[in-house]
């Protein structure tokens, strides 16, 4: 028997979540190929915020120009992907739905790659071209997968969704390979999108992520009651008065925008949106009002830890972030799938 979720997640727990996120954030700024003492890190951050003059330390440019923007971007990307995962898992009533399992991230990467190959650019906005293409392709991917899924199996069962996601990902990957074959001069640029890394992130990236996350996150959180209803069942949601089509479209567009922006900045980083909501749900319960807030912090923290692993594990060689999350995520995925089958039996 399960314990009640009603009072397991409250304001103090949220504060603990927040505290852990801040600690991990500072830890990630300190650790790396060059170790910076905690005191120095805190002093540099404090001075930067207060616009005070910085001490004469070799670590100052490392912290301010490399680590801080990177960790910020990692946190924001993790938070965005996790909240997307939570929203999709609620909407589709399926705890295995996520940008990476459905093939949305792969679709977005294809969009970004095409933008590079065909030189699709928005004047005076350097990364807007890839971003717009990534968003459009993320949305198209979602539409294709869901239309197919509804046609084949109206109940949107786990098997159908996962199978379609796999097939779609393979299809898109092969197109991506095709693009790479024909555009051999841009291979290095394109491969970046398929692996996922936030090593070169700038403050500009962080600001874009932050703004988009604020807008999309607010939209998704304002739909938490609708998502709760969808999590019980689409039919039930209709019966209690949820405007099904409108809510579905709003969630899908919002999720596409968020995933598209994340992919255009950090490439395809898989499984964060799958694993985080699943772990967070164990603490908060399935109610989206609590789940999504906790996912923001949990997803950010999870990805920061993954990024730390990517940097530290085989120092000084750095692993691509997407590889680390996929390694962890794939194992957890099998675990969740096995568990969900047991429940049915």
């Amino acid at each position, binding site marked *: *028997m399960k314990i009640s979720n009603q009072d397991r997640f409250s304001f103090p727990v949220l504060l603990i979540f927040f505290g852990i996120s801040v600690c991990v954030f500072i830890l990630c700024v300190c650790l790396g190929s060059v170790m910076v003492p905690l005191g120095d890190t805190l002093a540099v951050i404090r001075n930067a915020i207060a616009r005070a003059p910085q001490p004469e330390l070799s670590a100052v440019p490392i912290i301010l120009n490399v680590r801080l923007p990177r960790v910020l971007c990692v946190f924001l990307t993790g938070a965005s992907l996790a909240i997307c995962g939570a929203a999709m898992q609620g909407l589709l*009533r399926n*705890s295995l739905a996520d940008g990476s399992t459905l093939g949305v991230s792969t679709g977005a990467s294809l969009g970004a790659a095409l933008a590079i190959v065909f030189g699709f650019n928005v004047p005076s906005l350097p990364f807007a071209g890839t971003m717009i293409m990534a968003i459009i392709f993320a949305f198209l991917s979602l539409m294709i997968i869901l239309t197919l899924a509804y046609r084949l199996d109206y109940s949107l069962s786990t098997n159908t969704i996962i199978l379609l996601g796999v097939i779609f990902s393979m299809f898109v990957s092969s197109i991506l390979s095709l693009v790479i074959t024909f555009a051999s001069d841009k291979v290095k640029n394109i491969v970046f999108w398929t692996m996922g890394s936030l090593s070169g992130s700038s403050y500009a990236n962080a600001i874009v992520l932050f703004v988009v996350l604020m807008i999309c996150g607010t939209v998704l959180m304002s739909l938490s*009651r609708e998502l709760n209803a969808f999590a019980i069942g689409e*039919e039930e949601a209709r*019966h*209690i008065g949820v405007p099904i089509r409108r809510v579905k479209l709003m969630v899908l567009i919002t999720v596409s925008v968020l995933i598209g922006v994340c992919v255009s900045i950090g490439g395809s980083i898989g499984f964060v949106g799958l694993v985080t909501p699943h772990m967070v749900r164990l603490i908060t319960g*399935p109610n989206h009002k609590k789940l999504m807030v906790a996912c923001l912090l949990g997803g950010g923290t999870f990805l920061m830890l993954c990024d730390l692993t990517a940097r530290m594990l085989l120092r000084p060689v750095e692993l691509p972030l997407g590889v680390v999350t996929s390694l962890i995520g794939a194992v957890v995925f099998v675990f969740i799938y096995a568990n969900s089958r047991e429940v049915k039996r």
Partner: protein
Amino acid sequence: MSLLELSHVTVQVTDRSLRRAQRKTILEDLSFSVESGDLLMLAGPNGAGKSTIVNTIAGAVPYSGRILFEGQDVAGFSSVERARRIGILSQSHFVNYSFTVGEVVSMGRYAYSPSVFSAKAPDEQEQIEKALEMTGLTPIRDRSVLSLSGGELQRVFLAQLFVQDPQVLILDEPSNHLDISYQQQIFELIFRWLRAEDSRKPKAVMMIVHDLSLARAFGGKGLLLDQGKICGFGKPEDVFSETALNQVYGTDVAAYMRKLMEGWNL
């Protein structure tokens, strides 16, 4: 004016299983009405279109014709307006996530504060408590719905419907899969809701049943459906008459029932 009225409702779907897609008629020119205080029992063989009627009234199926609620066309209602007037209980529920009983029941209030910003009705909590009390769910309100039995889960969704406080309840085989004691409980709850005197609004219940003895015993009105057409509408004893049933079900219904009851010495 009727509480709920279906006027010349026809539902057609495109059958893709055939080589050339064909239009297939599921409901054909259906007209009937539900008056205030009615307890309408809807019966018919499998595939007669009973559940399609429910889905059509729920707005999930495209149809031609008109569905009127107190004279107003429901097609003009927003989803929230519809939910405040018509409440629907599905045949079966498959919940995947461990929501608590209390959480699921309180979702029934959605139609009254659809936006996170809209103010909650002052009596909201009271309504929820009342529904939990009425359905006997108060002791298990903090339990996960995943741990409930079929009968308990059905009561949870019935409580959600009571919280939704519609004027017409439409129930798709509410006692499906339930043992006799649960069946009885569910029916008593529905009767209590219909006869509750504290309500100022006119109310009615429309219920799909497979069990013909239930339909005859409890129904205030009956509707017999066969192949998407109405075979009888009116008093249950007239509608579910021996000749009509034998014709629709293609078997000697009365003889079968007598055989079932033989060993009981009632």
